[in-house]
């Protein structure tokens, strides 16, 4: 085995970051096609289905945006947290809890809903608050007691999933339909997010999401708290020495990321499903981890990476239909993509030479 020597580059140029990011984008769909070929399926048929499921047809493109919207918010929150080296892995649980809180509110007004201009803002606000509340537990456990947030956020996610499973079969279940399906009553039309493009599910959610990404860019790079988050992530002890309240910064980063994840869950339930389903726990919160990495943990990068992944999700479901392949293929592709991104990122930060 040839011995390789890895040395850190002193400064990473913007150009090399862009090249590396581009590489990651090219590699991801190749991974999917490679896995398909390995599983004995035709990559060409898959490529065609992938194309039609993403940018090839209007319906595919709409679905790309629909899938990308909640991902964008969740990945945005994670990008902010990860900038501060706060490893929130529980966006899944936070978005579920956000959706649960929205459902609770909507069910209160199921028979006599208030006007849309009350229902929608309050609903979205509650999803935001729900995600924030759910993230407060791991935030405090980390900042006060130094408990590893990866473990706590994952444990919290399991709790949220079981709570969801219970609610859709218990207190929130639609008792009016026979057969007792695990789902809540359909939400009244007053709660549906306004549609942006006719005959699609593209709602104002995409505008909210993109606007928040731009806002987050200013927050992260132009405000004192944003600077503090990045400083803590870069070097916690130096940040502490220079007077940054590290604990408060950790709390802010975790809670803000939870809130954005919750909002993602809220936008999904009010914009797409219009009822609480067990499938709210779709694993989208885990996908958001990959999306935030692919977006280089940059709020503007997340806009692209989430739409890209929205396309991958939408395209993969059309591939799955065309080739009769299991849904787990997407999961496998995500796993390979995340490992490859980690390896590719090293190329930007280090020089690898023969020693």
């Amino acid at each position, binding site marked *: 085995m040839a011995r*390789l020597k*890895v*040395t*850190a580059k002193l400064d990473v140029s913007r150009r090399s970051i862009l090249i590396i990011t581009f590489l990651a984008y090219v590699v991801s769909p190749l991974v999917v096609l490679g*896995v398909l070929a390995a*599983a004995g399926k035709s990559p060409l048929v898959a490529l065609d289905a992938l194309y039609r499921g993403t940018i090839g047809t209007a319906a595919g493109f709409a679905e790309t945006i629909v899938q990308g919207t909640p991902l964008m918010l969740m990945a945005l929150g994670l990008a902010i947290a990860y900038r501060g080296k706060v*490893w929130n*892995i529980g966006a899944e649980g936070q978005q579920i809890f956000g959706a649960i809180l929205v459902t609770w509110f909507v069910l209160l007004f199921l028979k006599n809903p208030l006007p849309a201009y009350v229902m929608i803002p309050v609903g979205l606000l509650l999803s935001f608050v729900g995600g924030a509340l759910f993230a407060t*537990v791991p935030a405090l*456990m980390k900042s006060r*007691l*130094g*408990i*590893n947030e*990866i*473990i*706590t956020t*994952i*444990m*919290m996610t*399991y*709790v949220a999933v*079981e*709570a969801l*499973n*219970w609610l859709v*079969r*218990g207190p929130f279940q639609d008792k009016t339909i026979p057969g007792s399906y695990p789902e809540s009553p359909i939400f009244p039309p007053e709660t549906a997010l306004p549609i942006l493009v006719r005959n699609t599910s593209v709602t104002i959610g995409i505008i909210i999401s993109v606007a928040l990404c731009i806002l987050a860019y200013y927050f992260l790079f132009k405000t004192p708290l944003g600077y503090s988050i990045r400083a803590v992530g870069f070097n916690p002890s130096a940040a502490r020495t220079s007077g940054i309240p590290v604990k408060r910064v950790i709390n802010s980063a975790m809670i803000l990321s939870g809130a954005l994840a919750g909002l993602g869950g809220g936008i999904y339930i009010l914009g797409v499903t219009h009822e609480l389903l067990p499938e709210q726990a779709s694993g989208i919160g*885990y996908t958001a*981890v*990959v999306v935030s*990495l692919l977006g280089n943990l940059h709020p503007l990068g997340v806009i692209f990476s989430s739409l890209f992944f929205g396309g991958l999700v939408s395209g993969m479901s059309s591939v799955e239909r065309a080739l009769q392949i*299991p849904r*787990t*293929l997407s*999961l*496998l*592709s*995500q*796993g*390979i993509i*995340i*490992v490859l991104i*980690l*390896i590719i*990122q*090293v190329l930007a930060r*280090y020089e690898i030479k023969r020693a």
Partner: protein
Amino acid sequence: MAMIVDAASVSELIAAIIALSVPMAFAALGEVISERAGVINLGTEGVMLVGAISAFSISFFQHDNLFGVLVGGACGALMGLLLAFVSISLRQDQVLSGLGIYFLGVGLSGFLYDIFFGQIGSTIRISGLPVLPIPLLSQIPVIGDSLFSQDIIEYLAFVTLIIVIIVVGRTTFGLNIRAVGENPSAADTLGVSVTKIRYAAVIIGATLAGIGGAYLALSSHAFQAENITAGRGFIAVAMVYFGKWRPARAFFGTFLFGAAYLLGAFFQVVGSIIPYYFLLMVPYVLTLVVLVGIARGARPPSALGVPYNREGG
């Protein structure tokens, strides 16, 4: 509620808790070794999943459960090798590397399940591991039947615990593991290869996690397509904190969770006024509570999570 507690039921209870704990116990032991060398393997859950699907497939197609456990361990080792490469050689963030391994394990196990078993409609069952009662000891009243009448992997778990305690505490290799976890540059100065020792520790640790996953799959007889581990890998990592990086404490810590899983299964059978889904939450809530309880006073290996770079950069 009047419960009739007799010797036989206590014995069955202990046996059930051991069986539920052993997968996590293996993974926790592996994680102790890895973390003592300074590398967190947050992908333990994914490693267990890969161990589980590979062992289950071998058991189903080859009808050889012990070979299945071996293959499960070997596949775990491969996952460990990948983690070691990314986090030790490439010095990528250990948290991210572990996450990558986790996602890869989830995807790989689900995909392999669909490939191998997706077409089979009915529930797929395999035979369990044979029970080997130890003569005389298994005759002891109450505990004999549960402690000394188990399958071979359960005995192996306890044997592994003893080996890990001895190797980590009393051998040169163990000393090197601890040295590269506490002060890698000092170890390097003394001629210990930090990279080699860390690779070895991570791969051994992942092998144990793979065996744990394998045992989980084989002892549950029927396989769930997704997430058969249901967080056990992460609980194992939490138990290393709980055990303050000591093998025996981490090992027996997992028994608390074996009991918690049993509670869920028990109430599922007998029915209860508490909704079933709350019982399913118990292990996870318990993990959170335990972590809060032991938060103070736990001191990890000094170099835990820090990639080693000879040039100091």
